[in-house]
């Protein structure tokens, strides 16, 4: 639970302003000068560099099981990954991943 209201609003406002500045940076300020190739090359990988790192500990050490590896959650994660790699269909992956989680929690729990 998030208790600290000041922190919450700092994050909302800070993230809102920061995100706008990232979006406005080039189209609004830099004009049509192209970015150096090496900068574009790094920016291309930011999302795939941050999101997997965010998810990995949540899968390996779920807070719901006090940080110990949970067979049900791990199985659900693996199914989501495999379906996602196979079909590239986001909603289908979420659906089958969630279905697996409930089935596994029911069978193993």
């Amino acid at each position, binding site marked *: 639970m998030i208790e600290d209201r000041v922190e919450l609003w700092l994050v*909302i406002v800070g993230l809102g302003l920061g995100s706008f500045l990232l979006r406005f940076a080039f189209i609004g300020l830099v004009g049509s000068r192209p970015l150096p190739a090496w900068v574009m090359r790094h920016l291309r990988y930011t999302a795939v560099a941050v*999101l997997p790192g965010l*998810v990995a500990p949540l899968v390996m050490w779920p807070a719901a099981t006090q940080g110990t590896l949970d067979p049900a959650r791990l199985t659900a994660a693996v199914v989501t*990954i495999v379906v996602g*790699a196979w079909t590239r269909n986001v909603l289908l992956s979420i659906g089958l991943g969630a279905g697996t989680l409930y089935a596994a929690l029911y069978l193993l729990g």
Partner: protein
Amino acid sequence: MPTETTKSIFLQGARDAAPFVLVVGPFALLFGVVAAEAGLNVVEALTFSVAVIAGAAQFTALQLMVDDVPTVVVLVSALAVNLRMAMYSASLTPYLGEASLRQRALAAYFIVDQSYGCSVLKYEQNPHWTIGQKLAYFWGTVAPVCPFWYIFTVVGAMLGNSIPEGLALDFALPITFLAIIMPMLRTPAHVAAALVSVIAALVFAFLPYNLGLLVAGILGMVTGAEVERRSAARAGDA
């Protein structure tokens, strides 16, 4: 060839982006639910979605705040997820750079994965479009996506408080993230970046303030860029 009016181009944009409603709606709904679970009320959740209008960054910030990570680290991590918006902005600039400052500022706010992806594709195919036609297409792609982001956040936040405990909602976020990451892994460079990020995040998990995530992000980014550079160099030799 039928004549292209501003209105027909706007509708074309709306049609091209319409299928994304099926992704954006549930995703926003989930954000609302997770936000409510984290203790946000409806107004706070909606303000979050209106101010940031970027799902992955919002989920990241929410998760880190629940984990009681220092505010600075929350902001840096979530903004890192949104760095790709700067890339979108840079790549739209050659097409929209001649619009007025007010129009560019407004368009900048609405740069999201879907509006960017559709627009850049069409701008490449239609170099003869005027700036007015390009903007019309851009607003067309925004119309079916962004309003649903707000609306379904509210619906999710309202539902969130009435969802029973046993639903294992703690794992909704990891599953959603995994599902959106997989289609992003289009090239060996993307796969390498993601793998390095996973390994680094687990190895550096002992670092305080969740700094392990930032280390993982930087290492993953450098890895992706380096793999791309090398495969481009190899393709150049051949």
